[in-house]
């Protein structure tokens, strides 16, 4: 078997910097403006609907009596899953020392930066009385009344806020040298902002050492945080008595699902970068897609196994409710579409497609597959949340079925619009590719010839 070596872009250093700041210097194109306008309209529409929901009551959403959690919670879990991309790419690839990580780390972290607030907004949006959400926070009161630390929602709050703080710091720490690098390229207000954000970075040996130590520390510290976030989100469900939720495998199952959908989101953005920003083209080679495709496929297989595994304990425990659930999901007309759609999008398609190197190396099919996987992951959360609640009718009452309303759809689209809007603007004001990491990777790569074959290898950094 021929060993494949990762090849850095091989461009001159100055050109790397120029290419990285290209979207920041170029004029905004019409299609970008149209995209931003559409996103802004979506956000405004969602805000208006949310205002109406606050004024009139939660009845504006489609809740019925057994289905007390619905689209908002589904989208919450979905965004949390996408937000796991940043952690996986940055922390895991940094720890394992994968050299190809440089071009994808920051864009994944920035994805976390925008999707995590989008996710965190949903537990607030779905509250009946959002005005007093702070009762959930451990604020000192004159009555010495603390939140209920037995409730998974309180754990949720701690986990998400810790993850948000950690990932913002992680992102910023590795961005300081880049801001210092790009500062001389800009004049006016930008120069002033970058001067403040760069913390007077001069690039001394000591500064590099500290920054790298901090980055290494963060990538280790953030891993347990990341695992805890989605495990705790899964405990929101697993700690309840709803039969299809009440299972101990939910923690790893949700975590692997989150990584799976996070990888899909990264592939989506890589493909979009390759197509819409020509300057980035040399940083996203087919090798990147190949390597990411391999990780993605392993995660997909793990997800498929855990999904299957979820049914085993209930089967052996002879849980009749779970049998009902299974039949309802797979063979009823109501959930048949979402269930089999999920199986096809999340298990069959990734397994069949990603097994082939030719598939992994071509951009367009990978892009299409990434969209399919994220649709499948949304369907999965839909099946779990709404399917689980609808099926659980132990007593002969409360058999109403859930249908989402225009309010819920608008608010879900609002978060999609907000994430795309924020991400598009971020690309134009901050370097979305880590310039110093690209330069460093390039400077460390050496080519030698052994037995008539070119060998690319990396000299160790420090």
């Amino acid at each position, binding site marked *: 078997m021929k060993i494949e070596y990762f090849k850095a872009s091989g461009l001159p250093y100055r050109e790397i910097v120029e290419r990285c700041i290209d979207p920041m210097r170029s004029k905004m194109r019409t299609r970008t403006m149209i995209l931003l306008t559409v996103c802004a309209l979506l956000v405004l529409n969602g805000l208006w609907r949310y205002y109406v929901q606050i004024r009139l009551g*939660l009845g504006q959403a489609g809740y019925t009596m057994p289905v007390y959690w619905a689209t908002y919670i589904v989208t919450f879990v979905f965004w949390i899953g996408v937000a796991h991309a940043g952690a996986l790419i940055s922390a895991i690839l940094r720890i394992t020392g994968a050299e190809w990580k440089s071009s994808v780390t920051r864009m994944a972290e920035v994805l976390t930066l925008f999707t995590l607030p989008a996710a965190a907004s949903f*537990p607030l949006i779905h509250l009946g009385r959002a005005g007093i959400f702070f009762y959930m926070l451990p604020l000192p009161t004159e009555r010495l009344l603390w939140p*209920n630390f037995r409730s998974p929602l309180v754990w949720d709050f701690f986990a998400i806020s810790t993850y948000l703080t950690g990932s913002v710091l992680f992102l910023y720490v590795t961005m300081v040298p880049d801001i210092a690098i790009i500062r001389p390229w800009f004049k006016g207000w930008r120069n002033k902002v970058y001067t403040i954000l760069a913390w007077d970075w001069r690039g001394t040996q000591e500064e590099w050492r500290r920054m790298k130590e901090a980055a290494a520390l963060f990538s280790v510290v953030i891993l347990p945080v990341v695992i805890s976030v989605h495990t705790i989100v899964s405990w929101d469900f697993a700690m309840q008595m709803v039969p299809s939720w009440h299972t101990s495998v939910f923690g790893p199952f949700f975590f692997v699902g989150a990584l799976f959908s996070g990888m899909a989101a990264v592939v989506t953005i890589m493909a979009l970068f390759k197509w819409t920003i020509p300057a980035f083209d040399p940083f996203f080679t087919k090798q990147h897609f190949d390597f990411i495709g391999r990780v993605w496929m392993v995660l997909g297989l793990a997800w498929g196994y855990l999904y299957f595994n979820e049914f085993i304990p209930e089967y052996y425990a002879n849980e009749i409710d779970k049998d009902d659930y299974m039949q309802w999901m797979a063979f009823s007309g109501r959930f048949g579409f979402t269930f089999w759609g999920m199986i096809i999008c999340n298990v069959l398609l990734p397994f069949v497609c990603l097994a082939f190197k030719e598939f992994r190396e071509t951009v367009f099919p990978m892009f299409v597959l990434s969209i399919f996987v994220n649709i499948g992951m949304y369907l999965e959360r839909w099946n779990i949340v709404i399917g689980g609640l609808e099926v659980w009718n132990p007593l002969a009452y409360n058999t109403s079925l859930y249908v989402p309303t225009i309010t819920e759809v608008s608010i879900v689209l609002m978060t999609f619009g907000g994430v795309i809007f924020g991400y598009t603007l971020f690309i134009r004001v901050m370097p979305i590719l880590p310039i110093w990491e690209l330069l460093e990777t390039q400077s460390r790569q050496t080519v030698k010839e052994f037995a008539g074959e070119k060998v690319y290898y990396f000299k160790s950094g420090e």
Partner: protein
Amino acid sequence: MSATQTAGVETNATPYPVPIYPDTQWGMTIDLDRCTGCSACVAACNAENNVPVVGPDQSARGRNQQWIHVQRYWHGDADWKDDDPHVRAEYAPMLCQQCGNAPCESVCPVFASSHSTDGLNQQVYNRCIGTRFCANNCPYHVRVFNFYDPYFPEPLPEQLNPDVTVRAAGVMEKCTFCVQRIRRNELDAKVARTKAADGLLRTACAQACPTQAIVFGNLRDPDSAVTQMYESNKQRALRVWQHKNTDPHVIYLKRVEENEDRIL
């Protein structure tokens, strides 16, 4: 001695502390043999507790608010005819079971759902932020949510109960065992310098029940009507979803069946 042992129905052992009720544990027996499914309890509950009217549209969406509802179960063949004597309906009133190990209490992030020392599973409306976590976790599905502000068409405002607060939009609510009557009874006893008597106190549903199927009282008091009712019908006592270890304080008394062919 745990609450469970007082009620006389065994549950699984639990590693968690069992609530201890010093001298009062409010409970209820519902005799299914007497229940005719007339729904007088539902009407009485709605009137006593200011339960709002949601209207036909919301009701069709499954959002009807009733703190107590009568469940109907059909018995007989699947392809029954109208005059088939073997087909019959059976009724079971379902209300908050005031669980000792309530699943709703542990999941509420703000302690809106909490436990009182006299065995009530209470809902603090001021504290409730509307996460609806408790309703998801309730196996009996007896918690109802105020999707909109409460609405009382004419002439219903004329009969609102001044002792009971009206719940705002976004708040979870449920059966309270008519806690306003319990507290009033205690206050009256305090004023009269006597001990709160069990016989003076009945919930609205128990009061309205024409066949006296519902009996409410103090399960800790050996002379109370509810304890007597339970003790004399011990063989047919059951509690719903007992294997979930929720320790409900509502005891159902099974229907008396001489044989399956009995015509009702």
